[in-house]
């Protein structure tokens, strides 16, 4: 566990380096790449992109609670930068891959901010591509040839995508071997890659990536064999980071709402004096607090030394099931408590609510995680009895 002083310093530094800037946030909407490369460099310089990466790999070597502290500040600032996808998941996954020339190089590029990378893994229906035929890889003399598509890729203008592929096996008559997968570093500039930007609620975009006979060099292999343990671990870390970003988002939504309740008057009194609105505000606050404590508990479980994968997954889903739902409800109620102004584009609340809608489904929405939590809990209870 990171000590309280370090966490406080990190949070203060982050709040100073990434304050809320309405003009900047609005400026990047509906505009590629959807965020500020200059700000990304600032974030790299602060060490945030390497926060979880061990020191011997050039990182800060801090723990998950430090990464969530940053994510929370960025959520509070409604920052458009894809910190969770490209600053937590990608470096964490790369750092978990076996050392090697490619891995070492791209990890250094990623944590220096030189290259922005994120994972691509979902097929167009929104399921994990593994086991589906959405992307097929064939071994060639020089490496791989890829065909298929990934959708819901959180950084459509990334420099590279880290993607699991399943290989067609000659010995199986060209059918994929579903038990074997590889993790590839796919340079976005390769021939045959077409990226469609699908705009999300907050004016940023997801990428729908279509690969047609894309020739990827053999050196692009980051890991092979049973890649899922490291992939799942990085996903869980990303989910926790996403929870922290949503928590920051909620905190600001609630603050805006309380400020509004204290300033707006109707019927000759401050509307925050109406008991119905008071109790509604209390419920928002209480749900936000419970979400906060749930995250704290889950972070502690996830970063415990030698935590079993199932316990890590359950704790992760526990937090996301709570926060994914609370964030959307809180946004909704914040609008209602504001009245008409809360639904306008020019009032800042809309930026937060749209941002929450856009990021809440990342790596699984609340309902998906509730289901996963229930399954894991049942399985673990059966094992223990």
């Amino acid at each position, binding site marked *: 566990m990171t000590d309280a002083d370090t966490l406080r310093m990190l949070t203060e530094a982050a709040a100073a380096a990434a304050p809320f800037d309405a003009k900047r946030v609005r400026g990047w909407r509906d505009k590629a790449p959807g965020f500020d490369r200059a700000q990304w460099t600032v974030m790299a310089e602060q060490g945030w992109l390497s926060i979880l990466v061990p020191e011997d790999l050039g990182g800060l070597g801090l723990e998950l609670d430090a990464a969530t502290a940053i994510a929370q500040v960025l959520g509070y600032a409604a920052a458009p930068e894809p910190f969770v996808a490209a600053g937590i998941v990608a470096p964490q996954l790369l750092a978990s891959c076996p050392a090697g020339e490619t891995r070492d190089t791209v990890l250094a590029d990623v944590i220096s901010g030189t290259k922005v990378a994120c994972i691509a893994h*979902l097929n*167009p*229906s*929104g399921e994990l591509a593994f086991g589906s035929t959405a992307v097929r890889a064939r071994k060639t003399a020089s490496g791989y040839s890829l065909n298929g598509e990934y*959708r*819901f890729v959180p950084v459509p203008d990334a420099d590279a995508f880290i993607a699991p592929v399943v290989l067609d096996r000659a010995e199986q008559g060209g059918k994929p071997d579903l038990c074997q997968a590889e993790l590839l570093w796919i340079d976005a500039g390769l021939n045959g890659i077409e990226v469609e930007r*699908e*705009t*999300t*609620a907050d*004016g940023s975009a*997801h990428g729908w990536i279509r690969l047609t006979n894309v020739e990827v060099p053999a050196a692009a292999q980051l890991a092979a064999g049973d890649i899922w343990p490291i992939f799942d671990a990085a996903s869980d870390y990303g989910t926790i980071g996403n929870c922290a970003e949503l928590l920051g988002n909620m905190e600001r939504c609630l603050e805006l709402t309380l400020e509004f309740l204290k300033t707006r*008057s*109707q*019927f*000759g009194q401050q509307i925050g004096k*109406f008991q*119905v*609105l008071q109790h509604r505000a209390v419920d928002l606050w209480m749900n936000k607090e419970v979400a906060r404590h749930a995250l704290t508990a889950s972070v502690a479980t996830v970063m415990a030394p030698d935590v079993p994968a199932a316990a890590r997954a359950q704790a992760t889903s526990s937090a996301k099931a709570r926060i994914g739902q609370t964030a*959307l409800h809180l946004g*909704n109620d914040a*609008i*209602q408590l504001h*009245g*008409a102004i*809360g*639904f*306008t*584009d*020019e009032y800042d609340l*809309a930026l937060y*609510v*749209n941002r929450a*809608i*856009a*990021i*809440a*489904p*990342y790596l*699984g*929405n*609340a*309902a*998906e995680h509730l*289901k996963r939590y229930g399954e894991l809990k049942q399985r673990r209870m059966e094992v223990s009895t």
Partner: protein
Amino acid sequence: MTEFTYGVPQEQDWNALGDDEFRKIIRTEFETNYPQELRFLPHRPPFAMVADWWKRMSARGWIAPFWPAEYGGMGLAARKALIYHEEVERWGITRFQDHGIQMVGPVLIQWGTEEQRRRYLPSILNCENIWCQGYSEPGSGSDLASLQTKAVLDGDDFVINGQKIWTTMAHDASHIFILVRTDPNVKKQEGISFVLADMDQPGITVRPIPDMSGYAEFCEVFFDDARTPQDNLVGELNKGWTVAKSLLGFERIFIGSPKLPEYALEVLETVASARGVLDDPVFRDKYVRLQLDVEHLGASYKHFADIVARGETLGADVSMLKVWATEAFQKAADLIIETAGPLGAMKGSTRMGNVDVNVLAPFYKARPATIYGGSNEIQRNILSKAVLGL
């Protein structure tokens, strides 16, 4: 009865027809002539987009179904009016200038002078004038009677200064009716007047306000020494509150119609089908609960519609329809997002399996529904006082 002729003469006495026969005529007109691409629009369209249709309605004499026939309306009695409205909703006919048709017409027919009716009703009927409603102000939302926009007599004109907000489609309107304060020294409801004004004048500035989905249906309207002739006062001076309140007739039922939640359930079913969860028991449980909420909204709507059809007056309890309908609509919209998974983030139309779905459209439509038209908090205040006697 006036000698002046408004609009076009009616083809027949609609109220004399049987319900089914009447419905068939309406439905045939709609199904035959209303353009497919304009059905179930996600937003209120600008007039230009729907002008052909409304001009057709105007030419046929159907544009003002609820006005008396002598003023150019169809003269539908409540029973037939409900059928007309059901068919409008069923076919997804868009709304247009309901402020002219729904508000200005009835107000002038009840409170206006003969001169005012002759001046304004024909140009509503022939789509020449498009009206908007200037009620809310930045400082008076739920507490409408606290409005501050002032009108002062200067010769034959009122000179108007102040600001209105949440004025629906003001950027598409040629005229506005406004509540203005004409006496600042009396109880707040008692110093208000109801006046009409031409928007085409330097004293009026309109600024659209995009909502969080990016669409601008609402505007701010600024009055800087705007002028309107004294003749445009409707009803007595300082009695505007009474004029405005008189509009709460049977049309209050429409805001609680099951149509919007039903539309959301349809989107929900499409999304669930594309996501392959239509038979998932957990999804079905939530879906069936919503279906019941909407079915029972329908049962409640029918209760009030029967009152209207019998020609009786609606009580304050009709507010429950709006509360239930808008909250069911929101629940359905939220469940759409949840069911859509990663597609719940997508703005605008997006591909789901074999269909294109605007996943967030119900959300953006449902969310303000509990705010506009008297917020649900205000509705509950009314129900508590007027129905429960608390």
